[in-house]
């Protein structure tokens, strides 16, 4: 079978995914792609029950043509294109949601979350993705990066029986005052750990080579063996700000065994699920 060049160009010219000339009110900006997207999403969700640990992150679809809906972030692997929110299990895209610079979340189903919390649009979107999981039959933990994590979202998910964990930003909603340090982050002694519970969400702070802020509803950081793992760590590069810290733990050795919170290990293991699919 073959396709001549003329024929290829004819097909390319007339290629359509949705029926043309629908004079219906425009539902979404991507409605011309929607029939395919919906069919695929149904397939994705029908063919797999994800493992208990999934991740939410953003994907970029490269597009440099004219559109108000593309986002441009310089320095990324794909700097310009459509941004898609995706829920993935180790490289398998389970569900996705289109986002737009102009209309933020067009497909957002606002009736889905009916709790008392005031979720931001982005949080609602993550919540909506989470609801596509069969969370009534299985337990899930969603890992997300600091763009999504906030206390209200984690609480809303917890109320549905869905666990969540992620790095967080001090500027996120209802972030505890104890952990807001202003512009210049202090450097605590290495492996310092502290936590605050807010709305049944554990907000924790851990001094690694950098100060790391986590939130979780599935981890605890109290001194129990199942909350920490002895992990071999390479000695980080010594700079003036971390010199004392590192020498205290590593001395001359290039590798030392540190007790590392489970929360950090889990996060690192599961967060790259979306990038695998991307």
């Amino acid at each position, binding site marked *: 079978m073959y396709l001549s060049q003329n024929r290829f160009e004819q097909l390319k010219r007339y290629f*359509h995914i949705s029926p043309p000339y629908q004079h219906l009110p425009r539902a979404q900006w991507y409605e011309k792609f929607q029939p395919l997207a919906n069919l695929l999403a149904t397939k994705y969700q029908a063919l797999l029950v994800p493992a208990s640990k999934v991740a939410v992150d953003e994907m970029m679809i490269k597009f440099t043509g004219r559109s108000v809906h593309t986002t441009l972030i310089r320095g990324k692997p794909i700097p310009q294109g459509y941004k898609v929110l995706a829920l993935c299990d180790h490289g398998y895209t389970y569900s996705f949601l289109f986002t737009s610079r102009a209309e933020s979340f067009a497909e957002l189903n606002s009736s889905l979350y009916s709790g008392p919390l005031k979720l931001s649009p982005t949080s609602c979107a993550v919540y909506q993705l989470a609801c596509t999981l069969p969370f009534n039959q299985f337990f899930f933990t969603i890992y997300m990066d600091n763009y999504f994590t906030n206390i209200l979202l984690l609480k809303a998910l917890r109320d549905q029986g869905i666990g969540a964990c992620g790095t967080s930003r001090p500027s996120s909603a209802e972030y505890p005052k104890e952990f807001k340090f202003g512009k210049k982050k202090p450097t*605590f002694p290495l492996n310092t750990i502290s936590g605050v519970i807010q709305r049944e969400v554990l907000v924790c702070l851990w001094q690694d080579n950098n100060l790391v802020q986590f939130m979780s509803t599935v981890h605890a950081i109290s001194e129990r063996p199942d909350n920490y793992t002895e992990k071999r760590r390479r000695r980080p590069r010594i700079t*003036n700000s971390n010199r004392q810290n590192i020498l205290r733990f590593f001395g001359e050795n290039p590798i030392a065994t540190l007790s590392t919170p489970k929360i950090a290990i889990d996060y690192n293991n599961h967060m790259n699920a979306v990038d695998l699919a991307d």
Partner: protein
Amino acid sequence: MIAWVKMAEQEELFDSEEGEAEFERMEEYIATARADHEEPEAEEADDPEEGGSERGHRPQHRSRTEATLPLPTLPPVPEFQPLVQQKHTRVACYPAEFNVNGSTLDYFQLFFNDSIFQLLAENTNLYASSKGAGNAGSRPSKSTTLAEVKIFWGIIVYMGLFTSS
């Protein structure tokens, strides 16, 4: 040859001077920062790795910030009741007739099956006829079929996977 040896000697001299100076500065830094570590040799060994030029100023700067910024006190680790969850592994729900040892194409067709391509073919035909493709005066055109759309899609995917250059 002699010149080269001299150069090497000079370099060595330069290196060692630099190293000693570095070491003195380190001693000073250690004294000011009251660091309680045991092995200053370890630090000396690390020094060549770092950019040497402005390092002399930094220890002072560091000790100053340390003096003005006391570490905030952190709340103690709380006893948190995490969500109790049971782990499960991922389960693939293949259709009954699906051959698990099949080819990549078989797996692709799980997602892109004929009904999807049929939809694409139909809508492409609708659009083409609405645009008057194949009318008198323009290039002859016939309506497309499922098989043809598959080839078209294959070319698109191939071009995406194997870019030139």
